[in-house]
């Protein structure tokens, strides 16, 4: 009985298993592929598009409002047309994507970091700390994000950094609550008791045992929240608070192109809109699939 014979299945890390499960959905794979392309394009923006739309010296209003496919003064073709400032829409979209993604990702990460720290602490410390923190979270959550963001941004002024701060400020509570929820569940599991019984330091239990087991659902939430943050930034830019006009995000591009919708110069708003749409859908597809893959209840 001391030797237990069983065919040893190939060592399979949870990550590999996840990847395999993930790949089973073709839509999700398509989403992932789109996302990779988008992220790469955004990262390599300077090299993939002809113009730096944030550099005013490269713009010429005489090239403004050209229809897609027009030949511009710079000698290259504006495949997606130009806006009123003579920005090549393709370049503007890629750079706008970069700004939007940056805002979405950084804001989400910041909110995640704060939320995780607070939520984990609340769950692990319990009692008073928990009560206090959670009341705070409740209060924050009982107020719609867009209003708080609106007021905060009106306060903070314009700028990518400020948008990030505002979005992080409205999102952290959400993570705090989510992670507290799962941490409370996990904390009751026996492996945490086992760790306590082994007299492991609290910090270690929190970081090495509790956190990794609470994180997966949060990662799903976070991916979806990135999409949300991007949409929210777009909305805020649309409402006139948000990023600076000379460094337009996708939302800003849509908003400034909005006025050309009716006049038939559709490209100024439509293409950024489609780019935003594809980005958000891709993120959501990936997030959705992750949710399914990570949900143990539906897994077997």
């Amino acid at each position: 009985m001391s030797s237990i014979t069983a065919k040893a299945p190939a060592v399979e890390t949870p990550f590999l298993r996840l990847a395999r499960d993930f790949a089973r959905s073709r839509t999700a794979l398509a989403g992932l592929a789109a996302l990779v392309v988008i992220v790469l394009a955004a990262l390599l923006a300077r090299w993939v598009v002809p113009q730096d739309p944030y550099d005013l010296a490269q713009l010429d209003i005489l090239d403004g409002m050209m229809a897609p496919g027009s030949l511009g003064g710079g000698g290259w073709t504006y495949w997606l047309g130009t806006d009123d400032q003579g920005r090549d829409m393709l370049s503007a979209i890629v750079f706008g994507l970069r700004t939007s993604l940056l805002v979405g990702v950084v804001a989400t990460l910041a909110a995640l970091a704060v939320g995780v720290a607070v939520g984990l602490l609340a769950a692990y410390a319990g009692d008073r700390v928990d009560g206090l923190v959670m009341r705070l979270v409740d209060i924050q959550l009982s107020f719609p994000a867009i209003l708080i963001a609106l007021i905060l941004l009106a306060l903070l002024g314009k700028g990518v950094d400020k948008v990030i701060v505002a979005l992080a400020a409205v999102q952290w509570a959400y993570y705090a609550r989510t992670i507290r929820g799962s941490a409370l569940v996990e904390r009751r599991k026996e492996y945490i008791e086992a760790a306590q019984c082994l007299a492991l330091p609290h910090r270690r239990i929190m970081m090495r045992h509790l956190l990794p087991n609470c994180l997966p659902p949060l990662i799903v939430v976070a991916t979806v929240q990135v999409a949300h943050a991007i949409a929210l930034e777009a909305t805020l830019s649309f409402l006139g608070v948000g990023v600076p006009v000379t460094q337009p995000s996708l939302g800003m591009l849509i908003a400034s192109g909005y006025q050309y919708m009716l006049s038939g110069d559709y490209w100024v708003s439509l293409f950024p809109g489609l780019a935003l749409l594809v980005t958000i859908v891709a993120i959501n597809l990936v997030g959705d699939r992750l949710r399914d893959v990570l949900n143990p209840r539906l897994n077997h």
Partner: protein
Amino acid sequence: ATLTVGTSAEPSALDPHYHNLGPNTRARKHVFESLVSMDAKMRLQPELAESWRAVDETTWEFKLRKGVKFHDGTEFTAQDFVYTVCRIPNVANSPSSFTVYTKGIAGIEAPDPHTLLIKTGKPYPLLPVELSTFGIISAKAAGGEAVTFDKAGCKAESWPTTQAFNDGSLMIGTGPFKHKSYTKGDRQILERNPDYWGPQPAWDTVVFRPITSDGPRVAALLAGDVDMIESPPVQDIERLKSAPNVSLAQAQSNRVIYLALGVQDTPPTITGTEGKNPLKDPKVRKALSLAVDRDAIVKRIMMGVAEPANQYLPAGFYGNNPEVTVATDANKAKQLLAEAGYPKGFQLTLGTPNDRYINDDKVAQAVAQMFTRIGVQTQVDATTANVFFSKRNKQEYSVFLAGWGADSGEMSSPLKALIATPIKEKGYGTTNYTSYSDPELDGMLDTALATVDDAKREKLLQAAVKRAVDADIIIPLHYEVTVWAMKKGLSYEPRADQYTLAQKVTPAK
């Protein structure tokens, strides 16, 4: 017949004295009239006063129209004017009252119910113009038959509240329309005043609907929800022109869009100059003015619906100086910069509102492009008007873009407000946030504003505007053009003061 108008902004209140603001005045002009009014070209016209003249340097005599009835049937008399002037400083919570226009009045006498003798403290040529800004309310309806004018403040038991106008109870004027109903944020409904003294308007009912977003406003017209709209966005004008059942009316407005260059000792938004303010150097200012291609802006950003400006009021307005010109020459600009010791330029942040003037932030971006091209790397700080005006008023911009509409329709208005040295007592420099001061120019204004003779005054103003433009402190960009779009079959004489007046809208002959 009913006329439905989609307006671009809503009055903040129906009280004619509550808020000195375009939409409020537009709403007021349908129900309440003033002694004097302006026509579409902003020339003075008799309204409740049939005629007026300056008796001496400081006394004006107004002959009032006889037989004019308020909507409640009482007759209009001099007392109504007295009461109105008395009430104006006594509007509770008014964020911006009309006292600017009444405080020149030192005394009022009414030798008979249809004659007014108005005294001013000093010579005051603009008095008739200023009397055109506010509407006259019924003293009787407000219980003010006994109120008498007192420079230090009139006495009355109580003054009508703004609420009383909003709920319609005091909406009793002499105008061509009677107020019928008002739902804030949604619509104001007016009815023809059958007893109106002047020509009867063509409409039995007029509905004003605020549709503040540009797109929906145009869409509402195209969809036939409204018959007429104010200020369709410039980019839609081509489309509207080609629409089969829409006609347009457009006129140059009294509003100039300008760049203001600050000459503070330490420039708030200029870097790369070791703390010095390059704008103190007239050459640099000239260079910036030369850098701006006004035609390009008008053509590309304003879609041709604007006119390049070379001074602060377009030709045809009182005080416009045909000899003043501005030029565009990027090479010259670069050369001037080099001469001034900035061959590599410097960095500059240009402040602009993004929701105040037509395409304001886009114009600013275009200007930034042009500045950048001569070597002055320019960032644009576009914010909502609330933030922008607060920052600007604290002089937090070295260069900003703004606009000025001369309500009086004459050149003294922009000169006095934008470039004259701020002097509280004279009301000079109220909007001068550049720290610029030119005592000689102030002197020229002083003289002009004390000259009651119109022809003489115009000459003086023309000289002053030349001096002002040449200083390149307030660089004119373009004059906005006001556009109305309406169903085919309607016609409207476009107005320089931008008001949409239903009584002037007529079904085409």
